[in-house]
């Protein structure tokens, strides 16, 4: 951090000012002039919260993607299919058993099993052939998409939010002052906050596991140099299978989250594949903190964009990607 400030004082200053302005926009009571210029504060705060929580969802999808890429150099373009598969499984389980949590567990396990099968049956046979692996994942995503369309049809599914999470919660953020002088507080759906906190917890746990445990050390060593790691006697194939299973399982969990937040239908797989591609391109391939930063940026850009410049929301996302590629082709937080 301090090195970044030393090396790029101008950028650091701009970042600090941007963060300060953002915090002021969130916490201060807006003066009337500002409300006239860009609309009500409630709308802005809702967009910010939607963006952050959507970023949490994107992080869940993209972290699995980036983990798999970082270790195995395998661009898994079937990752969106795993997401959708997890969502459908979560829907089936949570409607039949009535337990939302059980839906998560089963979705994680089943998508992880699919991931293991993919790694063992398909990718192990073509190790080191990046392009061929990518092609295979494209083929797989087509096959999976059609199989899921066959099994589930083209309908929209929404996973029922459990009773104890339904309803809004009042946050200690003032959106406006009534004429009587009472502050009006922001009300926000509890379930989205819970899911966001859960994704933060998962992210921090992943970071700790990668940086503080022996398995994490093996995985980081594998990211840097697979061959040397294998030569030291680590059973690298086992590590590959484990990482692939975990990454796929994360996509499955994200599917359940997405099914609760939004809805599940054919085409969502491609949407989330695109989202995770952009997130990891922006954040940096193979980097978990990069995925978190990228997910936050893209989620915020998407939601703020859809509120303030509705027809060009997708262009904002895309422009961010272009700018990052132009300035830092390896992504914001990649180590090169």
């Amino acid at each position: 951090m301090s090195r970044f400030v030393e090396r790029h004082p101008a950028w650091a200053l701009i970042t600090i000012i941007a963060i300060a302005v953002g915090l002021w926009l969130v916490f201060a009571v807006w003066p009337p002039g500002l409300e006239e210029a860009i609309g009500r504060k409630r709308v802005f705060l809702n967009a910010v919260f939607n963006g952050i929580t959507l970023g949490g969802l994107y992080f869940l999808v993209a972290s699995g993607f980036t983990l798999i890429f970082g270790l195995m150099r395998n661009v898994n373009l079937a990752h969106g299919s795993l997401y959708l598969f997890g969502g459908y499984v979560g829907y089936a389980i949570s409607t039949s058993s009535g337990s939302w949590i059980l839906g998560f567990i089963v979705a994680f396990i089943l998508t992880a099993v699919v991931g293991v099968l993919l790694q063992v049956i398909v990718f192990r046979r073509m190790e080191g052939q990046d392009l061929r692996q990518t092609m295979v994942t494209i083929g797989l995503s087509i096959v999976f998409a059609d199989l899921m369309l066959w099994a589930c049809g083209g309908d929209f599914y929404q996973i029922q939010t459990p009773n104890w999470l339904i309803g809004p919660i009042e946050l200690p953020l003032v959106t406006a002052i009534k004429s009587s002088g009472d502050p009006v507080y922001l009300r926000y759906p509890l379930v989205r906050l819970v899911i966001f906190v859960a994704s933060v917890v998962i992210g921090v746990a992943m970071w700790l596991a990668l940086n503080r445990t022996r398995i994490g050390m093996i995985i980081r060593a594998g990211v840097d140099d697979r061959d040397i790691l294998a030569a030291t006697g680590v059973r690298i194939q086992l590590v590959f299978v484990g990482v692939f299973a975990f990454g796929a399982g994360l996509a499955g969990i994200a599917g359940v989250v997405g099914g609760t937040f939004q809805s599940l239908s054919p085409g969502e797989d491609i949407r989330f594949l695109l989202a995770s591609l952009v997130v990891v391109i922006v954040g940096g391939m193979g980097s978990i903190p990069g995925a978190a930063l990228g997910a936050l940026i893209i989620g915020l850009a998407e939601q703020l964009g859809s509120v303030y410049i509705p027809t060009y929301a997708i262009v904002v996302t895309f422009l961010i990607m272009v700018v990052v590629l132009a300035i830092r082709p390896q992504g914001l937080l990649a180590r090169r």
Partner: protein
Amino acid sequence: MSLAHDAPVAVGRTTKAQPAARTWPEINNPAAWAVAAILLIMPLIASSFFLIEIFATTLILGTMALSLMFLAGYGGMVSLMQLTIAGFSAYMVAVFGVSGNPNISLGWPWWLAVPMALALATAFGTLGGALAVRTEGIYTIMITLAIGAAFYYFTNQNWAIFNGHTGINTVATPHFWGVNWRADIPFYYIVLAVAALCYFAVEYLSRAPFGLALQGVRDNPRRMAALGFNVNAHRVAAYAFASFVAALAGVLQVWNYRQISPGSVSVGACIDVLIIAVVGGITRPIGPFIGALIFVLLRTFALDFLVRLGLDGNRFRLLIGLGFLAIVFWSSDGVIGLWQRWRQHQRREVSRASGGRGHG
């Protein structure tokens, strides 16, 4: 149907003739002449359904896939945005030309609208390429896929230029010299001429100094840079050429269907172009056309075929996906590669048999 059997023969012979000299490999190849003759007299043989729905569509898709084959085969850059460039060019024809949405279309005559569309689409593709060459290998796939997907969502959301998800309908097609060029037979010849032009351009370019330098860049960019070649400039130039080819195909496509909508530039369609190129084989320019023929035949007849087998006719994409997987698994060079391996196998059998006789 004869095309399906003759085209691979042409390929087999071509490769044998290739090392001989740096001339057109087709000239001494009877099969290539036969295919050319059949393609020329096709309107006499085929019904109008086959002429447009099968052969013209094959040639248009083949040209799009050809632009990908040029980038992937000679430049080593797998770009998933070739269909997006074609779609952009198609949109531009509809926007600048005459269509059923007069509040969007500017109503230019086709001879102004088409060059404009080609120029804009080429510029678009070149810019995308300039972005994509900042990265390598699998990153290129991801960035071009992201560009394609962004364009798809943009056309869906933008109503001012792209008319949202309804797209632009009843696009006018050219009439001049007293001929309706969208009538089946003239249109087939336009498509054939453009496809042939692109095919020979790619073939010529692959043996021209630029193409050879590009192949050098594909095989060893560092050594080429050390030799004084500007690696990125070659790659961007390759993107520019491929974009032009794709843009031509896009113009033909919008004339073929007379409409353009976000559905035709969807991510699935982008991936279809990759499938066509890979199934056909991305080492030779004939590959994309073979792949396109297989793809179009499957797309048109898979439904009837599956129903006849007692299966669900809607599983066409499953069939395509499984076929693609099988090709990727067993042949790195698509159908062409399979054919060549089979030929070599046959030749080995023959030589072994004759050798045995000579010994005895």
